């Protein structure tokens, strides 16, 4: 299912758009323009864009923007969003302080 995008295809240069300053990821304050430019710079999937710009890696963990980012990347590449894998699900599924995460209780309360 992990369909990949042909990296040899020429997607053209980044062309600024009037709404490029709209924030897409609020937690990390990543704009539409930054994501569009990242795709043109060769970040062709959700994982790469996340690592490059940190969108979806803030406090809400992509709860709001995951779908927006995926749709935006797909539109930029001219592919249906379904082609792009979603971000990998990892623990902790909810934002957690390190001191809590490290405090493993051997018995359930």
């Amino acid at each position, binding site marked *: 299912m992990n369909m990949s995008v042909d990296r040899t295809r020429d997607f053209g240069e980044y062309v600024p758009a009037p709404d490029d300053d709209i924030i897409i990821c609020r937690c990390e304050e990543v704009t539409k323009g930054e994501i569009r430019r990242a795709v043109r710079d060769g970040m062709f999937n959700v994982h790469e864009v996340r690592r490059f710009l940190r969108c979806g890696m803030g406090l809400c963990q992509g709860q709001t923007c995951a779908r927006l980012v995926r749709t935006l990347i797909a539109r930029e590449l001219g592919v249906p969003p379904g082609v792009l894998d979603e971000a990998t699900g990892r623990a*902790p*599924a909810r934002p957690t302080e390190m001191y809590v995460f490290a*405090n493993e209780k051997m018995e359930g309360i």
Partner: protein
Amino acid sequence: MTRYDLIVVGAGPAGLSAAAEAAAAGMRTAVFDENLKPGGQLFKQIHKFFGSKEHKAKIRGMNIGAELLGEAERLGVEVFLSSPVMGLYKDREVLVRQGDGVCRYKGDAVIVATGASENMLTFPGWTLPGVMGAGAAQTMMNVNRVRPGDRVLMLGSGNVGLVVGFQLLQAGCSLAAVVDAAPRVGGYGVHAAKLARTGVPFYLSHTIVRAEGTDRVTGVVIGEVDGKWNVISGTEKRFEADTICIAVGLSSSTQLLKMAGCEMRDDGAGRLPVCADDGETSIPRVYAAGDVSGIEEASSAMLEGRISGAAAAGALGFITGDALLSRKAELEAALESLREGMFAPKNRGKLPDKTDVGLPVSASLLSRGYLGDAEVFEYPGVKRASGLHPVMECTQNIPCDPCRDACPKGCIKVRGGIVSLPELDEAAGCVGCGLCVAACSGQSIFLVNENAGDGGAEVTIPYEFLPLPEKGERGVALSRSGAALCPAEITDVKLLPAYDKTALVTLRVPTALAMKARFWKREASV
């Protein structure tokens, strides 16, 4: 590490139902939920649910939630609140945050019922305070008792947008408009009609161009979209608003399933788990139930939960043989009946233009949110009759039939299945008890007496706004579109326990307007 026969993640409608079903079969069951209170979205649903008796139709969602929670507690289900599940690992090991640490649990079966989160839409100004998901507004109103704003614009005409829109009116907000980029109302016509008759305008094929304001929303500009969803220049319209609610669908919260390694499929909008009919994922004894396995609504989520609960009980030998088969068959039949009609998941994206009996679906209802005054007579529930009788403005095939059982005289027939339209049996003799009016979850049944004496008529409407009008109070009768028709005096206000908080308000109008007047407003607010 504590072990349970079944661990359920999420104490919403699907999770609690799954836990109750499994516990009834004798399973030692734990439910983990990240919230302070159980029930998921159920306790926010202050409206009456659709469906049939077996689906708890005409009962308000919050009361269904209380009943379900009571059932789970009676059966010995352990519900852990403020306990977010952080991980789901191999061999059904579950990592839960509890207090200032994390605890590991193991389930012989695990049911993931984590629900969904709201989709967002971006436009200039979407990050301003005052822009929020419709579900968030609903939480503010119905859980935290905070009014989200004074004047709201609702984007999205699906059932969430329409139901929350109505609840905003109930909370005392005004609704500037319901806007949808699609060319037709997405939710139930009866929900749209409830809003339209209060005077809320619908703008289909429109979207938000921008929100105005510097530190909060002060206005919103919408515009008409062309076939490619681009705004047609020159069609912009501006509304005063301090709040914009976004109701553009939900996305399943599948993080735990993905983490566990369940096989996923793409439904066009996002990844969903590949599930068997009983909700079992590609990992044995890990099930997905409710919105996490695909967006539907609470009634079907509760049945999916029960089916997964029964399946888990069957897989571990708590129910066997015929008992298991008959329970599963019973639950599956109930779920199937909810998935019938023009709004069924299988019909999503299609344009229903005819009802099951070949009547055309009202184009006015789909494009403006209300039925035309003439076309309403085309439907079997709407008849002119002498004396007092119910008028059922039910025109779409929705799985719902509590009106039939509500009438003690048998005036209302629903021939065929649960999605068939109700018909009036004049011979049965309406006594004006009003039980059908209060039972209709869509508030689309009215009692009409065209000859109430002195050349006037009486129209009884369902009314769910406070303060209630008083007998003798004068106001204005409104049409289906919310237009002022004539001065109208309230001649009766009834609120019986059997009505479950839907008041029946009777207004007196000229006979010529008896089949047009469908709402009432105080003079001061017109």
